[in-house]
């Protein structure tokens, strides 16, 4: 920490992250990440999806141990076996999912697990109420201590969560995408609270996609790229353009072997489709041989659009046309029969059958193809699986192994093999390369090329902007469940995409975060 780069910080650092590395199978998620946090300062942590932000948060909050490197609190090295130890050391993390109990009051939540006891070992309600009032006043939060937390707004619940952290004596607060579910007014309230806490000497790590609010709030910023620190505190001026430049980097990215196969004929068309789950009045067209990219932040509604197109969520409005004919989808079974495939974002929950071998996972959507005289034929199943395993360069042992024992890349390819076997001609790939290694990624890009060359069409959902730009023919930007802009991939720059998606969401209109 050189004084020249770090704005004057008279106090010693509260928390030092010193060359922390963490490897997951196939990927180095954090590579010697270092930064320091100081009392009375808000430290922004930025980076694109997959840059290693969540990994470092997990390390700091005690969810996992780093492979190497040291954490120091007030200069003393610490190591956490679990989140409870991190909490005891004074690090409180406010995740996107809150850890409050919605059926209890504000007072009860703030004291959960450490209620003061009075005579006879009964809960000392007086002391509890007094302590709650004191904390809420100190934080300047205007919430009724007796309110049931589940009835508060999201912002209110979040403030209770923060108050709870403060009440446990946390000196370091980590906020992971704290504004993801908040409206503009609520963001302003939250920021006002964080500023008050900063004035009282708290040290905060602020992680967000929304660059404009980061710029208006933080004192220092560390930017991660590919698991490494791309820009340390003080190195980058805190302006949106500088930050975007540092996030994207200037080095040539991974190689994307893109072939263009889009033809004119429209195969799939969505007209004003909406679902209860969050797709709103979506219009889309997909052409033969085309890769249509869906861009947008996590939670923008891309997965919901995919599920609507696949019949997984029921339409409340609009219609879907396949080859110009209306497609009625009462369940995914209809979509599968019509030649659609959905490779979902979450392999484990929506994709894999942990009780099946690789080959049974591959054949489950096309059992008809391995039948003879009314019975499944193990030899046909085996032959089919082996052909696909070879074609997709899946590890040769995959057909007979339980899928749980395969690597992430091989698991993903097993699911792709399932849909190749059905002969699907419209494939919706939701984050197909998330959490898999570079080799497997390349194989998936090549597969996309091959499929489109055969005249099949792909809807690609990806939070990896480089990948989306390189592999798509056209890109539809999704915000709040609907498509706000469609453009040829060549007409969009990485910066366009980051800005369009990282925007808080009111259709291009600029908005100020009130201080």
């Amino acid at each position, binding site marked *: 920490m050189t004084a020249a780069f770090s704005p004057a910080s008279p106090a010693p650092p509260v928390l030092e992250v010193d060359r922390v590395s963490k490897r997951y199978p196939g990927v180095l998620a954090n590579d010697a990440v270092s930064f320091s946090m100081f009392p009375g300062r808000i430290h922004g942590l930025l980076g694109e999806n997959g840059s290693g932000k969540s990994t470092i948060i997990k390390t700091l909050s005690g969810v996992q141990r780093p492979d190497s490197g040291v954490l120091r609190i007030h200069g003393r090295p610490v190591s956490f076996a679990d989140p409870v130890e991190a909490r005891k050391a004074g690090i409180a993390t406010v995740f996107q999912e809150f850890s409050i109990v919605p059926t209890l009051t504000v007072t009860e939540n703030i004291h959960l697990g450490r209620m003061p006891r009075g005579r006879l070992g009964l809960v000392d309600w007086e002391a509890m109420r007094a302590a709650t009032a004191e904390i809420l006043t100190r934080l300047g939060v205007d919430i009724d201590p007796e309110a049931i937390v589940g009835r508060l707004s999201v912002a209110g619940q979040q403030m209770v969560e923060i108050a709870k952290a403060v009440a446990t004596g946390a000196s370091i607060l980590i906020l992971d995408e704290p504004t993801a579910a908040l409206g503009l007014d609520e963001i302003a309230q939250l920021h006002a609270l964080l500023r008050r806490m900063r004035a009282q000497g708290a040290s905060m790590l602020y992680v967000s996609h929304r660059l404009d609010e980061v710029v208006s709030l933080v004192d220092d910023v560390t930017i991660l790229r590919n698991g490494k620190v791309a820009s340390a505190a003080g190195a980058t001026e805190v302006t949106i353009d500088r930050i975007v430049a540092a996030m994207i980097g200037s080095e040539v990215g991974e190689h994307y072997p893109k072939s263009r196969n889009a033809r004119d004929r429209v195969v799939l068309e969505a007209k004003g489709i909406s679902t209860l789950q969050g797709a709103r009045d979506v219009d889309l067209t997909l052409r033969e041989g085309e890769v249509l990219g869906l861009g947008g932040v996590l939670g923008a509604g891309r997965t919901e659009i995919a599920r609507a197109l*696949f019949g*997984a969520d029921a339409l409340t409005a609009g219609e879907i046309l396949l080859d110009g004919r209306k497609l009625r989808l009462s*369940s*995914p*079974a209809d979509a599968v029969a019509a030649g659609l495939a959905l490779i979902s974002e979450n392999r484990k929950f929506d994709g*894999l059958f942990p*009780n099946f071998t690789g080959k049974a996972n591959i054949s*489950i959507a096309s059992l008809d193809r391995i039948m003879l005289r009314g019975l499944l034929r193990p030899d046909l199943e085996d032959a089919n699986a082996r052909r696909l395993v070879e074609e997709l360069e899946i590890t040769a042992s995959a057909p007979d192994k339980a899928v749980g024992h395969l690597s992430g890349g091989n698991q993903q390819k097993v699911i792709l093999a399932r849909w190749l076997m059905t002969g699907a001609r419209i494939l919706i790939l939701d984050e197909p390369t998330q959490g898999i290694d570079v080799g497997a990624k390349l194989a998936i890009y090549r597969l996309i090329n091959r499929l489109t060359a055969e005249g099949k069409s792909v809807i690609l959902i990806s939070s990896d902007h480089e990948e989306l730009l390189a592999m798509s023919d056209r890109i539809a930007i999704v915000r709040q469940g609907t498509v706000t802009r469609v453009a040829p991939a060549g007409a969009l720059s990485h910066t366009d995409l980051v800005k369009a998606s990282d925007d808080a969401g009111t259709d291009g209109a600029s908005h100020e975060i009130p201080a």
Partner: protein
Amino acid sequence: MKFRLDPQLLVPLAALVVVAAVVALTSDRFLDPGNLGNLSLQASIVALIAIGSTVVIFTGGIDLSAGSMVALLTMILAVAIRDAGLPLEAALVLVLLTGIALGAFNGIVSAYLRIPSFITTLAGLIAFRGMALLFNNGSPIFSLDPRLEPIFYGSLAGIPLPFVYIVFFYAVAAVFMGRTRTGRKIYAVGGNPSAARLSGIKVERIQTTAFVIAGFMTAVGAILMAARLNSGSPNYGQTLELQAIAAAVVGGASLAGGRGNVLATLAGSFLIVVVQNGLNLNAVPSSIQNIILGAIILLAVGIDMWRSELTRAFAALLRRRPFH
């Protein structure tokens, strides 16, 4: 999913042999041919009903209603013959169809109306026996039809009929689970329902199918139960559902769904009945027998839940022992 003889079969078979050996040591009457024959006949009813319980467990559900359904179906059979004057054949078909209908009810309520099958069939456990008591003022009906008894006591080429049924139904069940689309889909639904849905499987339909199979097998068991004593009774089949579930779990079917081998349930059924027989031979009162059945169910489910830990502990034990 295995299509060969796999360890899933060997473990329950080994357990059966051990338990039988222990029982043989505690009572010299156990190996008496008369006792063994009796025991086998008794096991056949549990084993046939357990086919259905196992298939339901494979989908990730549970059927607690089988025992009460047996009582209800034997009363329906008795009333159909004695009061409605139906010929035996028609009465048997009626019982099978009623079993299918009750199974479909269980399935539709738990799959489409999304009431957990544990609750749906717990309601059935209570309600079906209540329905059985509606007939004949709640009293058993005896001496139904002279042609009923041979269904249980008859034999084919010297083999007692219950064994013929066992061989037939277990063969069908094994082919069904291992070699048909529906069987495979049952494992898929139990393994990961949301992945099954996204793979184009109609999850609710598969779950309902499993309960229909359970209802049918329960009807088969009810017919044997009625044939055995040539009577219908609202008291038949108590704890039968638990014996059937225990048979499935002892056989290695995972209560989480998606894993297990239906043939292993046969070994599990015999194991449960051998334990009961051993307790009877040693004049253990029925109160204690129920306690022991409870303990066996806990233990079997525990072994299912602790499987990964047990495997690890076992592997560690093997590693520690020098093999060379």
